């Protein structure tokens, strides 16, 4: 990497966090220097209809009179309502965990749902799931908030008027019967059908409605991958990278380390933390146009235009074939090599030497079957064809890449087919159109199928009165997945069950399958009382091993308890490499600005748009919240005179879109990127946040558009980023080492003089809680932030308040860049309260609201805090958060059910911060005390550590020299942030490691 060559051994690496700062441009400096951004400490601005002085006085006297009257009687203390018949498994105050399964798009992930007195409050991974024990995808964690979304539909409606369930069922059946008797086709427009039992139900429905057309479409997919894999394997397959077996990984603009699949992150991270500098470590290359989170962690990152990725992959293949004797798969001898030579594709950053090293490493790893090439799902077919070819040549299939057939008879279709169905629907060719899941009116903005409101033949089955529902006459409320039954195949041969963690919140709500089952019965098909029985019956017939000595009821109970049933993986389909050729020939290199549309890491295709946690979740790379600014390369931005927050108009032919700009270091010149899923037009949280990237998609669904025009338009729209807030001025905060630097002993020890203290040391009689964060394992996915938010009742503040630096997250993932802005390397560093032994916040609190516990915790007594904010001022880590406004008191029901009952909900005017999940510590201590033993190592797991798919966060007792955390804290890579201040933090960081290719350092 260029910076490495410039840097002399021992010289201090300079880290920077934003473009303005990196280039020393004036604009960024003062804003970054202000600890509290403009307006952070201002009183709230009052709306026009705010209380007048007279009205205030009137209310004051009235309430004083009332207070005087009520002071004469005893205050009521409320009621305790016990169960009439207590369910055997419920003890009030003790959480129950139910095994269930989360699914989105092509993925399913087994999870455990933590419930208290019957209501889900937290989602964790299922520890029996071998691919990612105990780890849940971050969006699954955020889904408890979705369950309690006040915008959810509560009853069926017809033409906007609420109707009873029986009436809704009758209307649905009537439409279907009419369509059947008139011989008209029926369209079921739905999401990817992963569940075998759901597929079985659809097949039954197909028997009752002979002209049923099922279109399953995932709007966040480019479709290129599917086309390539279909021709390669002769059918739709699922492809899952298995980085645990890989030694060298090449990512082609893939975001497989985004945390959406915790299994990939876990496996990758396991190979990224060697015990010593001579131990083996996975080497990771990335080639991409957009600056992905995954690519930011690469040991060598090639900045290649997204449209050139196919040519890049073929160029590497050519090197492999010509220099390293890798054989091309059969039938590929006349493979057309790209016209552009490899070196012409490479931008700033990794160059030819790295490309040669990549080919050499891939060839060496391939001999052990340990090479892996992953391509991003949004990329066009030629890239996937080239990636598949590389994987075939390197022998990765079945070794580092799992391939298994699509588990149901309803594979997802491409955008063209989906649009075709919508066209026919618009023309009124269907007797009944049932929209179930997805949100086609958002994914096909302005499509004429949705031009007419409340179309009589349209039925919407979903959670919300969303864009699609507004086009349908009949709207059926669907149950949330936490209230539903189902089954999935998360890995080849492995079956996972979904069971409801609670009964639907509203009596008229039922899961989609249940509505369809009612329809099936009304049409004279198979009759089943409810979907749970239908599922169980299918399992009895098809999943229960016929010769099993275990009676079915026990098998079923065990399956529900574990959430998983292992089985035999289906035989992997055989590839026919020759089928890749037509896809490769379609590869072409374009000039002009390229626009990469990619599924938003927060909202995916927009389905989570109404989830405030996900809206306010800082993008792991840009740290932008509440919106999807257009990412532009610094060079392009300079050329067009654009700065962060300037507005541009994007046009591709007739299609246009306006968006604010965010300058993204590392983005290849000529590549812009926009996240999909924003610009929703319905729902109270989602509406009006960001712009709808789907409006730029053409009919082919290609998500990489070339020849896009960008022009600056007047006006500014500041992007609410958490980027420059709560920062620490240019000190030694993160450390990153190459293996060779580590071998030379760099990065060990501390900066500056050893900390000395005039004060006596703190004493810790029993425990001294501490944490170790391994920056080498951390991929920056920010899943910990959501787990913390769910566990600790962290409020959502909204975009205006984020702009003022008032976000409340207890843990933030600092992202530092290093090197030139065209080709930086990133270090992701989770930052949370360091629980310093000599905490500077404690000394300045005038009311002693924050002080030290004998366990080494920096504790915060909210009821004592008077909100002076001195502590936040004095915190060198900037991890304290102040409740500038009342964030939680005015929630719409039932949203307050999401709160963790073990944690206080903080009111306005109170300071708060990470507590190391003290409620979990106290629970473990009480349990140990009652059982008369000591707290075992690993018994206390804070929410962030539990959620971390990379297992980068380890928590434990530093007083016990044999605990895992103590051992890690003694590692050669260990350092403490700002150790020279002498505050003695309890959090130890392990320097990030890079396995930079030989002879390129």
């Amino acid at each position, binding site marked *: 990497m260029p910076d490495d060559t410039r840097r002399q051994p021992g010289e201090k690496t300079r880290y920077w966090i934003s473009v303005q700062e990196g280039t020393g441009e004036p604009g960024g400096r003062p804003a970054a220097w202000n600890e509290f951004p403009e307006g952070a400490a201002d009183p709230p601005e009052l709306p026009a209809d705010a209380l007048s002085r007279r009205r205030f006085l009137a209310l004051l006297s009235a309430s004083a009179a009332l207070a005087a009257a009520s*002071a004469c009687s*005893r*205050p*009521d*203390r*409320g*009621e*305790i*309502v*016990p*169960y*009439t*018949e*207590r369910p055997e498994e419920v*003890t*009030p*105050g*003790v959480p129950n965990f139910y095994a269930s399964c989360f699914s989105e798009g092509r993925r399913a992930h087994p999870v455990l749902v933590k419930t208290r007195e019957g209501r889900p409050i937290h989602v964790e991974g299922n520890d029996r799931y071998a691919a990612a024990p105990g780890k849940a995808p971050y969006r699954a964690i955020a889904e408890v908030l979705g369950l309690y979304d006040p915008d959810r539909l509560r009853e069926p409606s017809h033409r906007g008027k609420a109707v009873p369930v029986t009436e809704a069922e009758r209307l649905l059946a009537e439409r279907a019967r009419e369509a059947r008797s008139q011989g008209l086709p029926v369209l079921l427009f739905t999401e990817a059908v992963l569940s075998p039992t759901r597929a079985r139900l659809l097949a039954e429905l197909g028997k009752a409605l002979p002209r049923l057309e099922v279109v399953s479409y995932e709007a966040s997919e480019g479709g290129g991958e599917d086309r390539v894999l279909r021709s390669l394997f002769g059918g739709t397959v699922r492809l899952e990278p298995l980085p645990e077996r890989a030694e060298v990984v090449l990512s082609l603009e893939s975001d497989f380390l985004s945390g959406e699949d915790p299994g990939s992150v876990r496996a990758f991270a396991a190979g990224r933390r060697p015990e010593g500098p001579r131990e083996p470590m996975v080497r990771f290359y990335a080639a991409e146009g957009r600056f992905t989170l995954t690519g930011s962690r690469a040991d060598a990152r090639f900045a290649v235009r997204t449209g050139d990725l196919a040519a890049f992959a073929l160029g590497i293949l050519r090197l492999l074939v010509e220099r390293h004797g890798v054989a091309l798969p059969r039938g590929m001898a006349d493979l057309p090599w790209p016209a552009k030579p490899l070196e012409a594709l490479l931008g700033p950053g990794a160059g030819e030497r790295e490309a040669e090293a990549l080919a050499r490493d891939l060839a060496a790893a391939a001999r052990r079957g340990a090479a892996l090439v992953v391509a991003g799902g949004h990329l066009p077919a030629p890239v996937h064809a080239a990636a598949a070819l590389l994987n075939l040549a390197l022998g990765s299939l079945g070794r580092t890449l799992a391939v298994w057939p699509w588990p149901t008879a309803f594979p997802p279709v491409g955008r063209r087919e989906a649009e075709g169905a919508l066209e026919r629907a618009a023309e009124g060719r269907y007797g009944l159109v049932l929209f179930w899941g997805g949100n086609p009116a958002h994914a096909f903005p302005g499509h004429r199928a949705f031009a007419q409101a409340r179309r009589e033949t349209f039925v919407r089955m979903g959670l919300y009165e969303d864009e699609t529902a507004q086009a349908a006459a009949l709207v059926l409320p669907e149950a949330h997945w936490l209230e539903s039954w189902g089954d999935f195949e998360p890995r080849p041969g492995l079956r996972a069950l979904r069971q409801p963690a609670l009964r639907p919140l509203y009596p008229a709500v039922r899961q989609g399958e249940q509505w369809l089952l009612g329809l099936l019965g009304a049409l004279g098909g198979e009759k089943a009382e409810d979907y749970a029985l239908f599922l169980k019956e299918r399992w009895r017939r098809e999943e229960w091993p016929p010769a099993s000595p275990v009676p079915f009821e026990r098998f079923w109970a065990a399956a529900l308890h574990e959430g998983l049933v292992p089985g035999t993986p289906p035989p992997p389909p055989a590839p026919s490499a020759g089928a890749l050729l037509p896809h490769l020939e379609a590869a072409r290199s374009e000039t002009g600005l390229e626009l990469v549309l990619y599924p938003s890491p927060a909202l995916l295709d927009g389905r989570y748009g109404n989830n405030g946690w996900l809206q306010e979740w800082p993008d792991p790379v840009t740290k932008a919240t509440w919106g999807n600014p257009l990412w532009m390369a610094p060079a392009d931005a300079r050329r067009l005179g654009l700065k962060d927050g300037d507005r541009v108009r994007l046009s591709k032919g007739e299609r246009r879109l306006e968006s604010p700009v965010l300058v993204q270091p590392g983005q290849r010149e000529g590549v812009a990127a926009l996240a999909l899923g924003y610009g929703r037009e319905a729902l109270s949280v989602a509406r009006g946040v960001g712009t709808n990237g789907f409006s730029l998609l053409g009919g082919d669904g290609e998500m990489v558009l070339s020849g896009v025009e960008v022009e600056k338009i007047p006006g500014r729209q500041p992007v609410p980023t958490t980027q420059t807030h709560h920062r620490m001025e240019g000190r030694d905060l993160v450390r990153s080492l190459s293996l060779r630097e580590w071998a030379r002993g760099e990065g060990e020890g501390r900066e500056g003089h050893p900390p000395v203290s005039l004060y006596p040391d703190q004493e810790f009689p029993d425990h001294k809680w501490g944490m170790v964060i391994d920056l080498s394992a951390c991929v920056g996915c920010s899943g910990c932030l959501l787990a913390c938010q769910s566990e600790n009742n962290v409020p959502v503040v909204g975009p205006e308040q984020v702009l003022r630096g008032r976000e409340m997250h207890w843990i933030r993932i600092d992202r530092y860049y290093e090197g030139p802005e065209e080709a930086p390397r990133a270090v992701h560093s989770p930052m949370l309260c360091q629980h310093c032994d000599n905490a500077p916040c404690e000394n300045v609190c005038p009311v002693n609201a924050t*002080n030290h*516990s*004998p*366990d080494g*915790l920096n*504790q*915060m*007594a*909210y*009821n*004592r805090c008077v909100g002076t904010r001195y502590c936040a001022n004095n915190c060198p880590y900037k991890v304290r958060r102040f409740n500038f406004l009342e964030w939680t008191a005015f929630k719409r029901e039932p949203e307050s059910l999401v709160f963790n009952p*073990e*944690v*206080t*909900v903080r009111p306005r005017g109170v300071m708060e911060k990470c*507590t190391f999940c*003290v*409620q979990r*510590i*106290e629970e473990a201590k*009480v*349990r140990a*005390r*009652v059982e008369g033993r000591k707290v075992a190592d690993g018994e206390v797991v804070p929410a962030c550590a539990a959620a971390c798919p990379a297992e980068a966060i380890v928590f434990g007792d530093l007083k016990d020299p044999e605990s895992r955390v103590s051992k890690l804290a003694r590692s050669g890579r260990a350092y403490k942030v700002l150790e020279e201040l002498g505050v003695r933090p309890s959090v130890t960081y392990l320097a990030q490691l890079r396995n930079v290719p030989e002879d390129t350092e």
Partner: protein
Amino acid sequence: MHPYDRFARWWLPVGGGAVLATVLTVGWATQPDRFAKGYAPTQPIPYSHRLHAGSMKIPCEYCHTGVRKARHAGIPAVQTCMNCHAVTKTESPAIRKLAEALRTGQALPWKRVHRLPDHVFFDHRPHVAAGIACQTCHGEVQEMEVVSQRMSMRMGNCLGCHRDAHAALPPGSPPRKGPENCNACHR
């Protein structure tokens, strides 16, 4: 009379008295313990602890089952009452009300007697495990016809015992203290 004399003789004492009366009234009205002790609301079922826990010597934990398993001791489900009352005293109006509640599934809203503020996370388990009797905090419940609050249950009560638990612990217990740090109860 000189205006100063009038002030000294009349206005000063009257004003001072008014101020004092206000301070005393407000102080008395807002004193935290004023309503704490002796609160004994009427319950939906005239359940007598004196009869059940006193005369019949039914152990507390027969009904308050959560006390060793959870933070909360818990209020028994209607079903627990019916363990006995399915056959005993079935004709009494209160028992009929219970049977009706069980039959319809209608919940019985008991009035809460002891209530700690929301930011206090008291846990029964370690206290019971240490052998502290229920009566230490809840008073001699087995002698109460109607349960009333006997301890004001303020932070001073907690800390008093946590600093020196000798009086509350059963005879022969090793000397021990409870935690005094904020996070032990507030989080």
